[in-house]
């Protein structure tokens, strides 16, 4: 029995708390921790992981009367610290131990108390550990640290935050000497990597294998009534069927957590459910909502005031949100790890089965089925760790200089190399970095007889404290439609950086748009019909579908095509739907699978079907695009999904095949293509921020990123950007594998004409879920017309100057007249132009006008000239956004035969204004 190893005091407390039986992780984990071993505990959420780590350590601190600070508890989520404190303070109090929280939001006063009277146990974040390590007094206290617990280590390890933490722990080790390390992790794909990351002698304790998941895939088919509802809700019948299924599931359970892959889908689902049934208590939860709003819905859900929450990854980990009896995944979760994590949020209590349902359909069904099968076998994705990230290292090296005043390159190298992600770091790399930091004037570097000595300087502090956090802060752009002149949604900075040039098309709020102009905060767009070449704006939110999963989907397609479905656990309804799709496709084209690639031609699109996953297709796509644009001398439009590469270009399908078959240096071509891409520039910006090259509050309008990038070519900053892009966005290894298979004939590539079923799905399917039925041109036009007629203008009599009135355009008479002097010389100007009347009066009284006033008067006069000739038509035109008398005269001179035609011309002039206004300034 695990509990019997504890001191009598703690045993008494355990009884008092009512813990009778230790859970599995407690049973096998606690003795190891008492023995002082470095331990990685892998257990599902809700199995009392925190207690496994804390109780034995508390007991040891209590028994040995360790000096504070004896233990650090590092948790990546600041919002969780309070929860944790509440949970642990009871034990600590009874054992006479002090416990406190420290992170960015903790008040100065509290920090001062901690500095003078440090607690035994400190709950903190990686960033704050970075901050306190440089404090003289806190460092004194940190000398006593004997135990470090790292919570949610599986989350940290894949990001740069984790890399930072690995270095921070080595810095701490310089101060405190060796300490016991405990890692707490959810189920992961490569436990050994996580263990190595923690330390080289880490013992892995797996207590998650007994956890049961019940995951089903459902593919609801539309019934006849769904088609009627679909029209009301402005969604497709298939989506309606899924929505109805979701509705039924929510109603037949107590508390249902629904996960979607994008914020946009979450919003659409919630709003349509509301239209479906206003009484159903549900709401959305995602990263773009305010913190207050999120906390409110979490609490209401926990108290069961809400029956359902529709969330994105924002609710994947973290706070306890009560007992959930069902998790619904809406459409394929794209990765097994994610499905396990999400499903694990239900049946939270020990021994309970976690129940999850994937609602899927059409092509998505293949992916959902494969992922469900893999989840039941617990075949999780491997973890990717950033190796030798130079930007994170830069800040930590400067941190070491601050801590030590002066430090030799040898010592820095020795400390750094102990951290797992830097185990292969070479001495010359650290020297290059040190020289670069000195060039950036972040440290002093002196060359002595015994090697280099790095010393802190004034700028070191600013830089270090500006870069405590490695998380990039991302801005949002407002999308403004020039038709309605209203905001229609938001775009992430990363998306704008990558796809935000004028002329590019993207999908947001259920429609396709073309970018007209981008400024510092806004993106101006007009609607287009051409959805095929548009890129979904939520692309950045989608996690990549891994190579292995896409390959298995290829195998699944092949076995369905061959008529024998072995080893796949799918319902007969799902099997039926999938084989229907394959049958339809195979009537005209060969079925692309893991050993057959299909290239098809449609309009100016070339679609290459390749079941290789998001990253390989992105890599391969960029490679092909680079070579094609070299060949044709023109830009190539590229769009990818896990199963297709879609290229818009003047090249031929045979050119693509030729590229696939020919053996060329893919590394160099890609490096060259990537370093010119806007993706690279955007990532460079973030890396440059972490290097302190670009300060966090720089005015983006005033810097020229291209110039900066070219100045830093071949520096650690440039190389780090390339490395990051290749790790996050590319999969070179598997791409080479695919190309080799093609060259050896193991994968056959065929060219066929015409658009296949699977090809068409690629061009439009990804939008289906959120597409409203197309808004007809007419509708757009009506919206514009309504807006124009609603616009309020100021009418001024230029003859007497006594008449000035603000009116909506629709209320203006056909031939406006001055009620005072009956003159028809009425000017229509902006309603905000208040002093116009004074200028007119001054002119009438023959007073001297300043140059400025004269200019204004002429504009007013010209406006009146137009109104006297064209009547209301002139007023309507002048009400257009950005249309002055000059443009209006040009528009009106066309003498449109109908009013409709006039409105069209005004719309055109407005667009022209939006497009060119930047140059007019």
């Amino acid at each position: 029995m695990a509990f019997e190893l504890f001191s009598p005091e703690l045993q008494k407390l355990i009884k008092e708390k009512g813990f009778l039986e230790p859970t599995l992780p407690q049973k096998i984990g606690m003795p190891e921790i008492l023995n002082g071993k470095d331990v990685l505990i892998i257990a599902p959420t809700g199995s009392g992981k925190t207690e496994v780590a804390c109780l034995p350590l508390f007991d040891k601190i209590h028994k040995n009367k360790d000096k504070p600070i004896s233990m650090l508890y590092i948790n990546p989520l600041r919002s969780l610290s309070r929860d944790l404190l509440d949970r642990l303070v009871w034990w600590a109090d009874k054992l006479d131990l002090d416990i406190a929280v420290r992170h960015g939001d903790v008040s100065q006063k509290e920090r001062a108390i901690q500095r003078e009277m440090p607690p035994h146990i400190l709950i903190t974040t990686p960033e704050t550990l970075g901050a306190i390590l440089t404090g003289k007094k806190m460092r004194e206290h940190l000398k006593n640290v004997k135990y470090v617990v790292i919570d949610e280590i599986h989350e940290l390890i894949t990001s740069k935050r984790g890399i930072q933490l690995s270095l921070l722990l080595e810095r701490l080790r310089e101060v405190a000497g060796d300490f016991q390390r405990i890692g707490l992790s959810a189920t992961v794909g490569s436990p050994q990597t996580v263990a190595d990351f923690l330390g080289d002698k880490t013992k892995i304790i797996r207590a998650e294998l007994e956890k049961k998941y019940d995951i089903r895939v459902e593919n609801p088919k539309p019934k006849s009534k769904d088609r009627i509802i679909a029209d009301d809700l402005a969604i497709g019948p298939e989506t309606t069927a899924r929505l109805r299924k979701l509705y039924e599931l929510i109603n037949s359970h107590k508390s249902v957590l629904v996960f979607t892959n994008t914020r946009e889908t979450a919003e659409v689902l919630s709003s349509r459910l509301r239209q479906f049934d206003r009484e159903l208590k549900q709401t959305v939860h995602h990263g773009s909502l305010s913190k207050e709003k999120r906390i409110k819905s979490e609490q209401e859900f926990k108290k069961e005031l809400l029956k359902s929450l529709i969330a994105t990854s924002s609710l994947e980990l973290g706070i306890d949100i009560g007992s959930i009896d069902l998790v619904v995944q809406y459409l394929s979760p794209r990765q097994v790890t994610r499905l396990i994590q999400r499903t694990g949020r239900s049946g939270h209590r020990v021994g309970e089965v976690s129940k999850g349902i994937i609602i899927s359909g059409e092509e998505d069904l293949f992916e959902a089925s494969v992922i469900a099968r893999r989840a039941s076998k617990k075949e999780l994705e491997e973890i990717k760790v950033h190796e030798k990230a130079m930007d994170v290292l830069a800040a930590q090296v400067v941190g070491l200089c601050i801590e030590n005043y002066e430090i030799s390159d040898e010592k820095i190298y020795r400390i750094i190399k102990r951290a797992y992600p830097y185990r292969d770091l070479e001495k010359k790399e650290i020297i290059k970095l040190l020289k670069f930091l000195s060039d950036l004037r972040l440290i002093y570097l002196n060359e002595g007889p015994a090697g280099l000595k790095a010393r802190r300087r004034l700028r070191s502090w600013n830089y270090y404290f500006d870069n405590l956090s490695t998380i990039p802060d991302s801005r949002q752009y407002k999308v403004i439609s020039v038709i309605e002149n209203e905001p229609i949604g938001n775009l992430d900075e990363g998306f704008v950086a990558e796809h935000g040039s004028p002329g590019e098309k993207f999908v947001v709020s259920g429609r396709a748009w073309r970018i007209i102009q981008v400024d510092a905060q806004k993106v101006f767009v007009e609607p287009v019909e051409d959805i095929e070449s548009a890129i979904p704006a939520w692309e950045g939110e989608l996690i990549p579908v891994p190579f292995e999963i896409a390959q298995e989907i290829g195998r699944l397609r092949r076995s369905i095509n061959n008529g024998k479905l072995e080893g796949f656990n799918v319902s007969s309804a799902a099997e039926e739907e999938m084989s229907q799709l394959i049958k339809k496709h195979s009537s005209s084209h060969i079925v692309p699978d893991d050993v057959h690639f299909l290239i098809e031609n449609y309009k100016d699109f070339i679609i290459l079907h390749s079941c290789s996953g998001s990253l390989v297709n992105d890599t391969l796509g960029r490679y092909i695009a680079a070579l094609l644009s070299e060949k044709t001398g023109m830009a190539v439009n590229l769009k990818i999904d896990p199963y297709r590469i879609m290229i818009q270009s003047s090249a031929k399908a045979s050119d693509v095949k030729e590229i696939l078959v020919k053996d060329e240096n893919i590394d160099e071509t890609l490096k060259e293509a990537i370093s010119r891409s806007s993706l690279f520039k955007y990532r460079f910006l973030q890396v440059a921020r972490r290097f302190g090259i670009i300060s966090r509050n720089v005015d983006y309008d005033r810097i020229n990123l291209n110039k900066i990038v070219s100045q830093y070519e071949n520096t650690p900053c440039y190389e780090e950007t390339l490395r990051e892009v290749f790790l996050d966005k590319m999969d070179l290894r598997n791409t080479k594998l695919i190309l080799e298979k093609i060259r050896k004939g193991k994968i056959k590539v065929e060219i066929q004409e015409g658009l296949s079923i699977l090809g068409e799905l690629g061009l439009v399917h990804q939008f289906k879920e959120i597409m409203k039925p197309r808004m007809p041109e007419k509708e757009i036009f009506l919206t514009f017309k309504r807006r124009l007629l609603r616009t309020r203008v100021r009418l001024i009599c230029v003859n007497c100057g006594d008449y000035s009135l603000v009116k909506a355009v629709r209320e203006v008479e056909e031939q406006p007249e001055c009620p005072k002097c009956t003159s028809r010389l009425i000017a229509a100007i902006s309603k905000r132009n208040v002093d116009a009347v004074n200028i007119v009066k001054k002119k009438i009284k023959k007073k001297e006008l300043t140059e400025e006033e004269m200019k204004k008067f002429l504009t007013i006069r010209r406006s009146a000239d137009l109104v006297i000739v064209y009547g209301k038509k002139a007023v309507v035109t002048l009400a257009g956004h950005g249309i002055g008398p000059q443009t209006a005269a040009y528009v009106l001179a066309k003498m449109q035969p109908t009013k409709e035609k006039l409105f069209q011309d005004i719309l055109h002039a407005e667009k022209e204004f939006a497009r060119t206004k930047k140059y007019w300034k």
Partner: protein
Amino acid sequence: MLILVKWTVAWVFMMFITGYPALRINDYLIISDLHLGITRELYKKGVSMPSQLSKIIDSIHKIKKISGAKKLVLLGDTKHNIPSISYQELKEIPDFLSRLRFDSIILVKGNHDGNIENLIPASLRDKVKIKKSFVIGDYLLTHGHRNVKTEKNIVMGHNHPHIRFIDKLGARYIEPCWVIGKYKRKKIILVPTFNELCGASIVNSKGKFLGPVAKKISKRNAKVFLLDGTYLGYIKELMDDKHGV
């Protein structure tokens, strides 16, 4: 390598160095607007840049080799920060001057060059001459921030001329360029800046050129050349609103 050679009446040898913002007149190599301390100003704006010094010195020596010139004219704005001299300039400018391998250096004063006299190391007093303007044959070399009375052709800096191209989709590209304008049958040549980090003035947009000298140039009969020698035509034909929109 394409080289433009001009023989004028007074038998002056003059050539533009292809691919670089530099020209040679007789034995002199002429470059302009180095703005050596500009990284300090950029840093204050929030962007940290490596020092440009070594890069600039290397490329000057490269051009020296190509052109075969023995003497150097720095056509103003060699330093950047005004009114005070930054610490960086205090260190870099003497270093810069002493690392240049020329027989003599003429330092024409620009509007950013206040007190540059104090930055010339004693050992270089004989080699470096400071002038307001400088004459080679029928060319007068000056920075261009002050008016000059002359009957000669003028070579000047101060403007950082660049040309802007706008493509069909509205994407904009900016390239440094030479401007050769006319005033009273004499030429006025605007030399592009030598430092890539400097701001640009766009020649094919509305407004006049900078400074009392260049102001006299009419955009109607001023020619534009790219650094590689491409002749683009008269500025009036290249105005922003004439193409792309």
